[in-house]
C-alpha cells in the first residue's frame, strides 16, 4: 500500500506505462467499440464504401473522441450531475463544428461526400459512451489516451470494412485520392500489374459490396472471426 502511494506521487503528468498502453491497445481488440461495445455504428458505416472517406472519418472521430475526453475530464469536478449530458453535448458539438469547418476548408469534395455524417459524430454513441464511462471518472491524460484508443479501434474496423468493400465492389483502392490504385478486374493496371497482365482480369465488380447491406454482412463476419479467436466475448445469453 505504501509503495503504491509512493509511485502515485512520483507519477509524472504524462506518464506512459503499461496501464496507459493498455488504454490504447485494449479497444483495438478485446474492448473494440464496434464489435464488442456496440457503440458508434450509427454514423459511419455509410461512408465505408470507399477507403478515403473512411480514413477521413476515422481521423475525425479520433480527434473528437480524444479531445472531448480531455476537456470533459478537465471539467469533471465542476460539472453538476443533472446537466452533465448537455455539457458533454456542447463540448462534443463544438469539436465537431471545428472538424467540419476545417474539413470544408481543406478538402471540399470529401466534405461533400461525407455530407451529414461528419455532423453525426455528435450523436456517435462511442464519444458520449466513453465520456460517461471513462472521462467523468479519470484524470485528463488517461482520458485522452482512452479517447485516442477508442477512436483507433473504431477507425480500424471502419478502414477494414472499407478496404473489403472497395476492393471487391470497385476493384480499386484509395479511389478519389492522388494514389488511386486499380488493383483487380479488367481495367487494372495502375500498380505492380500492367493492363496486359492484369490480376484477376476475369473479375467483374460485385455490386452487392457497394450496397449498405454489404457493410452489415462484413461486420457480422468480422465479429464472427473475432469471437472464434476470443472465446470470452461469445454471447452466452
Amino acid at each position, binding site marked *: 500500500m505504501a509503495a503504491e502511494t509512493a509511485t502515485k506521487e512520483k507519477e509524472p503528468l504524462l506518464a506512459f506505462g503499461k496501464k496507459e498502453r493498455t488504454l490504447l491497445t485494449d479497444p483495438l481488440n478485446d474492448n473494440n467499440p464496434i464489435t464488442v461495445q*456496440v457503440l458508434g455504428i450509427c454514423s459511419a458505416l455509410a461512408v465505408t464504401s470507399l477507403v478515403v472517406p473512411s480514413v477521413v472519418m476515422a481521423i475525425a472521430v479520433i480527434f473528437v473522441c480524444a479531445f472531448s475526453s480531455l476537456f470533459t475530464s478537465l471539467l469533471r469536478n465542476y460539472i453538476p450531475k443533472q446537466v452533465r449530458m448537455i455539457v458533454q453535448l456542447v463540448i462534443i458539438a463544438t469539436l465537431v463544428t471545428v472538424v467540419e469547418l476545417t474539413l470544408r476548408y481543406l478538402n471540399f469534395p470529401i466534405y461533400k461526400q461525407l455530407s451529414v455524417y461528419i455532423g453525426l459524430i455528435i450523436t456517435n454513441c462511442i464519444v458520449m459512451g466513453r465520456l460517461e464511462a471513462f472521462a467523468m471518472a479519470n484524470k485528463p491524460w488517461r482520458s485522452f489516451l482512452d479517447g485516442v484508443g477508442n477512436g483507433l479501434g473504431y477507425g480500424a474496423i471502419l478502414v477494414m470494412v472499407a478496404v473489403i468493400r472497395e476492393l471487391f465492389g470497385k476493384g480499386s483502392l484509395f479511389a478519389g485520392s492522388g494514389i488511386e490504385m486499380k488493383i483487380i478486374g479488367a481495367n487494372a493496371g495502375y500498380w505492380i500489374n500492367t493492363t496486359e497482365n492484369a490480376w484477376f482480369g476475369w473479375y467483374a465488380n460485385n455490386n452487392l459490396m457497394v450496397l449498405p447491406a454489404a457493410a452489415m454482412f462484413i461486420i457480422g463476419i468480422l465479429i464472427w472471426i473475432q469471437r472464434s479467436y476470443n472465446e470470452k466475448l461469445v454471447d452466452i445469453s
Partner: protein
Amino acid sequence: MGEFFNIFIKAAFIENLVLAYFLGMCSYLAVSKTVKTAFGLGLAVIFVLGITMPINWLIQENLLSEGGLLGMDLTFLRLILFIAVIASMVQLVEMVVEKYSPSLYNALGIFLPLITVNCAILGGSLFMVSREYNLTESVAFGLGGGFGWFLAIIAIAAIREKIRYSNVPAPLRGLGMAFIITGLMGIAFMSLMGIDPAAFASN
C-alpha cells in the same frame, strides 16, 4: 397533400433511415431483443422525430440562415443548436408524457432519454437541411422517417425473438447474427424501390 405522401413513402420505405443510412443503429441493436420494448422505442422515435423536424426547420430558416431574423449567416451554429433543441424537446416530451399519461411513461421508461443520442433524430434534421425541404415536407420526412425506423426495429425484434431458438454458431450468436439479419433486411427493403411515390402525388 400529394407531395406530403410522396416524401412520407420515400422516407419510410425507399430511403429507410436504418437500412439505407445506418442511422439510429446503436439503439436499434441494443433495444431489439423483444418486440414489446422495441414497440415503445419505435413510437417514441416517431413522436420525437415528428416534433423536432419542424422546430429545427423553423430555427434553420428564421434564425440561422442569412435571410433570418438576425440577418447573419449563422449556419456554423447549426449543430449545437439542433442538438440543444433535440435534447430539450426530449426532456419536454418526457415531462409531458409523465404528467398526462403515466402508463405510457412507464412503458417507454428509459427509452425516452436515450432518444437524444439516437442519430436518426439529428441525422433527419441534417438531411432536411441538405435536401432543402420546406415546412410541410420536413414534417412528412420526420413522420415518414420515424415510421420507417419503427418498422425496421419491430421487424428485427420479431426475428431476433425467433432466432433465439435456432442453432446459430456460438461466436455468431447475438450481435453477429443481428448484423447479418439487418443486412438481409436491407436487401429485402430494396425491393420496395419499385414503389413510385410520384403515383401517390398525382392522385
